[in-house]
């Protein structure tokens, strides 16, 4: 990022004395022969006396102009690429959160289907398979999108495979009417939460961290300080030149300074714009997408816990406690996102159904509790939960899509501006050479 600054020394002529030995010496007429001794002689001659200093300062002025242009263009491009990376990291967060949601959704469907007893319905089987298919393709897509996640996702894929295998074993045993099926299902659900979900959470956390880092990085105005220093140097040059020559206005040099000032200003404006817009996205749609994804996962986890509580028939106190934790998470998540009144209403409808399920079960009416928990009639737990799940997923997908699309658009104009700024710096360099050259000519 700061690469250009390291190259300054290259531009300083080798062996150039600081220009200090000005003074009386060397009043001999300039001849062609004088330049023969070589480059060193040429350099000494060029930098000698006031014209020499003018040449030296002119050269430094050009360096300052180019430096300003380079730093500005670099800052612009850096902002743009930071926003782009922020977009990619946000997209990865969304992707992995989708895996999280789908894993818990699959488990909620599998456990609830088990509760119904007998053969699961073709519909719930299709929903389970759909969720697991999305998990599989999601893991592949996520691994391709962020190589740094590759290893973790590899382990996740392995754990998911174990989960799926246990669910299938539960299912085939269940079809044979063997109680060992329930044991496999419990093992699958427990293993999913203990072994797979923590990895998903870790990957989400890592990518949130990366996105946050890039959100912060998108403001590269600090680099422009170098530009400001360059500009001050140029103004100093202009003042020195004016004093030296008693000619106050040098149109070319002034033009160069004005041009660079505009370039610096435009750069700062564009970068600040990108950074402000990025911050708006990070605090708006992005935060909303993340919060809604958390709501969806907690909701589906709650639904699975409801089924597990019933499956354990009275020994599911731990699962009911987990349900309550999930509920707190959903409530908190919904409170964080504005415009979620509709979602809150539909979540509340499910909570009401769940409370009824619990009171039936606690009242010794397990069969009725199961009926209500699996009921697809209006007001049934299945109906109300599915309605909530669909609505929250829709909202979340929308927020996620908007986030990524907005971020991708943000840096769009930066390369063009960077190009124009670079051109302006070159033009300014030329103006400086012209302006200083003019004075040298006059001095002679």
């Amino acid at each position, binding site marked *: 990022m700061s690469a250009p600054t390291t*190259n300054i020394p290259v531009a300083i002529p080798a062996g150039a004395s600081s220009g200090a030995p000005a003074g009386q010496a060397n009043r001999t007429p300039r001849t062609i022969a004088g330049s023969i001794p070589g480059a060193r002689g040429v350099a000494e001659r060029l930098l000698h006396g006031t014209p020499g200093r003018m040449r030296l300062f002119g050269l430094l002025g050009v360096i300052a102009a180019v430096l300003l242009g380079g730093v500005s263009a670099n800052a612009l491009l850096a902002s*743009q690429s930071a926003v782009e990376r922020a977009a990619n990291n946000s997209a990865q967060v969304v992707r992995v959160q989708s895996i999280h949601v789908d894993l818990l959704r699959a488990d909620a469907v599998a456990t609830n289907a088990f509760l119904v007893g007998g053969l699961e319905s073709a519909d719930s089987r299709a929903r389970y398979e759909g969720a697991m298919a999305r998990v599989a393709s999601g893991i592949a897509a996520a691994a391709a999108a962020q190589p740094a*996640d590759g290893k973790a996702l590899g382990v996740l894929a392995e754990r998911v495979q174990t989960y799926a295998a246990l669910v299938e074993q539960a299912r085939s045993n269940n079809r044979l009417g063997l109680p060992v099926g329930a*044991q496999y299902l419990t093992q699958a659900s427990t293993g999913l939460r203990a072994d797979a979900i923590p990895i998903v959470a870790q990957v989400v956390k890592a990518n949130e961290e990366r996105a946050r880092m890039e959100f912060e990085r998108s403001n590269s105005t600090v680099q422009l300080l170098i530009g400001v220093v360059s500009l001050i140097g140029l103004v100093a040059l202009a003042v020195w030149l004016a004093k030296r020559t008693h000619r106050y206005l040098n149109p070319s040099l002034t033009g160069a300074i004005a041009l660079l000032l505009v370039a610096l200003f435009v750069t700062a404006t564009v970068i600040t714009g990108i950074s402000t817009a990025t911050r708006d996205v990070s605090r708006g749609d992005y935060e909303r997408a993340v919060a809604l994804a958390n709501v969806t996962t907690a909701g589906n986890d709650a639904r699975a816990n409801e089924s597990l509580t019933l499956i354990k028939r009275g020994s599911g106190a731990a699962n009911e406690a987990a349900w309550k934790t999930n509920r707190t998470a959903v409530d908190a998540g919904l409170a964080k996102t504005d415009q979620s009144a509709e979602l809150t209403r539909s979540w509340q409808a499910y909570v009401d159904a769940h409370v009824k399920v619990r009171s039936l079960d606690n009242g010794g009416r397990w069969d009725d509790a199961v009926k209500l928990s699996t009921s697809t009639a209006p007001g049934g737990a299945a109906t109300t939960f599915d309605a909530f799940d669909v609505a929250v997923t829709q909202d979340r997908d929308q927020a996620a899509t908007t986030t990524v699309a907005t971020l991708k658009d943000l840096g769009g104009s930066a390369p063009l501006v960077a190009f124009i700024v670079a051109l302006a710096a070159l033009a300014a360099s030329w103006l400086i050479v012209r302006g200083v050259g003019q004075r040298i000519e006059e001095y002679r």
Partner: protein
Amino acid sequence: MSALTSTLRRRLSTLVAVAGLGVLAGCSGVTYAETQLPATTAPKPSSSAPAVAAPTCTNATQSYDPLPSLPSRGEITDASMRKIISKGYVTVGVSADTYLFGARDPFSGGIQGFDIDMARAVAKAIFGDPGKLQLRVITAGDRIPLLQDREVDMVARNMTMTCARWKDIGFSAEYYRSGQKVLVSKALPGAADLALTDLEGRRVCAPAGTTSLTKLQQVKGPVVVTAGTHTGCLVLLQQGKADAITGDDTVLAGLAAQDPNTVITSAKPITVEPYGLGLNRSDVYLARYVNRVIADLEADGEWKAIYNRWLAEPLGPAPAPPTPVYGR
């Protein structure tokens, strides 16, 4: 002049090229540290508490005298029973995965088996309706704490009557007699005749908190593996994490029925396991009431009918019911 400008120009082009490279460097080259895997918690060592020296006595199967006859609901004044009656159902701790004794029927979703029928008989006696039950699925290790905390009124979950348990809870009269045997994978050499003592170095599974586990721990040779339930042991066996399971022959029959690759060995049972319905220690009246129910079941042939319904197929037709011992 031209010399100066050309020099400057050359320098300039070099500078621009260098700055351009710098810009390029600014665009790319962000690499992230690899995502860390969550720290794995070390697997808990299979908690096989050292075998406690079991208190010995000679009257483990001795329960309270049955009531002379079943009183009607209105006649019952005992506080514990009144609570059950006003609640409207009996809360019974059962197993949902002990095939044939207490297991969930995947087709109906209901729990059924020999133990469940015993509980239903009690509910029928109290309420006139065998369905007035709240079945609470519990693990073997839950049985005593839940009875002590009165979370359940009764436990019907293949529970062996022992002297040690009598110190914590009460029991009905013996309603079934089982014995501890071994189920092994057919893959083991000479599988059909293996006894626990032959399983040196093999991993043998028993559910935590059971008398089977205590007995297993007293046998030298086998490596003890525990699970939450017998079915949990079957899963371990099917996953290759255990070579054999020890438990009551009735339970093992249920496991063997679920996996044709296993066999209950012909070795003699190493224990006698009298099953009783578990009750709270202070519910003596309830125990006497239940003993009357059991005695009636055995007298009118209902016990044999229940036995035949569940156990005739794997174990042959019903033997005579165990002789109850009263007088505690």
